[in-house]
């Protein structure tokens, strides 16, 4: 249990670092950086915990992104900013960049070697990437779909 706690704390810390780094790269206003770091830590901690309890990567991502999106409504109302300013840097740590890279290099390798196993592995990576991305996006939208029903203005 202690080892799990240490792993979650480590990943949460580096999740916060990664979220803040991306927030600066995305030119996020200075006064929101702490909230972005909190979203990154929360997302990474919840996903690590869920995966430690045997949940698959896609469901764990969905769970974490719903939590991050719901959490981002807290800072949203005070400085009047869109929730995405906080939630996107928070979930960017969960974007499946490695799966995307493996899928693309798999297809390039298949062009060279014509091995069906490589082709299937590349498709598997691509579908995993798409499923995780769908889970991320659906998790981000779900709270706003539940809280704001078909608003026409901001």
């Amino acid at each position, binding site marked *: 249990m202690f080892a799990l706690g240490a792993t979650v704390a480590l990943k949460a810390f580096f999740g916060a670092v*990664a979220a803040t*780094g*991306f927030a600066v*790269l995305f*030119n996020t206003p200075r006064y929101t950086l702490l909230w972005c770091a909190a979203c990154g830590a929360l997302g990474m901690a919840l996903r690590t915990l869920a995966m430690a309890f045997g949940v698959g990567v896609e469901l764990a991502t969905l769970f974490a992104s719903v939590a991050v999106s719901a959490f981002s409504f807290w800072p949203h109302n005070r400085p009047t900013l869109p929730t*995405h300013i906080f939630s996107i840097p928070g979930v960017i740590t969960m974007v499946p960049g490695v799966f995307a890279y493996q899928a693309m*290099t798999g297809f390039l390798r298949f062009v060279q070697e014509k091995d069906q196993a490589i082709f299937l592995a590349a498709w598997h990576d691509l579908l995993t990437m798409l499923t995780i991305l769908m889970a991320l996006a*659906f998790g981000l939208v779900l709270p706003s779909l539940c809280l704001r029903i078909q608003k026409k*203005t901001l």
Partner: protein
Amino acid sequence: MDDASRTRSHDPREHASLKKRTQASSPVGRPTHASHEHASLEKALTPAIRAGAVMFASGGEIDKVRRAIASMLRGHALDHIHILVAHNALLVTVAHQGEVMTQVQSIDGHGVDFNKIAAVYRLAKKAHRGRFTPDALRAKVEAIRRTGHIYPRTLAAACAALACGAFAVIFGGGPAAFLVTAVAAFLGCQTRFTLVGMRFNVVLVFSVSSFVATYAALVLSEFLPDRQYAEMAAVLFLVPGVPLIDAFEEFIRGYVTVGLTRAVMGLMMILALSAGMVLALSLKGLW
């Protein structure tokens, strides 16, 4: 983005001659009702469509862009507001007392700038409450459009490098992998900013930057036991996370066309990124 082309439902030449005729017949030379209506519609519409274009080009999701435009136009008591968002153009039609106006605003380049999104969002909220005159709103939108980066580019590259180093640790690497990844990502990120500043094509920018980052990571991690983490994490600052998340969000909200174009652009960027990595791996004899 400056060249907003404006069209009206009537022929402009016809409108001009009509305006001339009615002004000539008017004894005091006052503007007619139709021309006054036309000018006020244009004053209302121009800042709204420009603000929407700024938001969309900065990585704003389409539903928020539409709502921001609608909020800015809300105070003008219009009969109809119709908004169409394509990947590289915005089209808004408004109607008031029989006068109809359509404006098209081209969107030249897409990027990610949350500061501009936040500024437009706040402005639209205030405009919805009727706090600005059309001229003041136009000036504020232009000020937002001209806003530069909050952070110096070297600081942004350093932060992106730290983020990539953090990814290497999250994947299971140690302190050495963190350091190597951060240095390689910094070099890649600086390359990206330099090429973007020189206005190179986005696909080329992604390929060259990922090549530089991967090659640097391969050279620096030569003697590391956990070098695979550094290789994987050094290019993650290039993964187009915002366009891909926006694309799926747009699919979910029903804006399939814009979502598809964004997703295809995102996949093109990943393909360019992979090509740069493959080139670096081939040069080192690892592919």
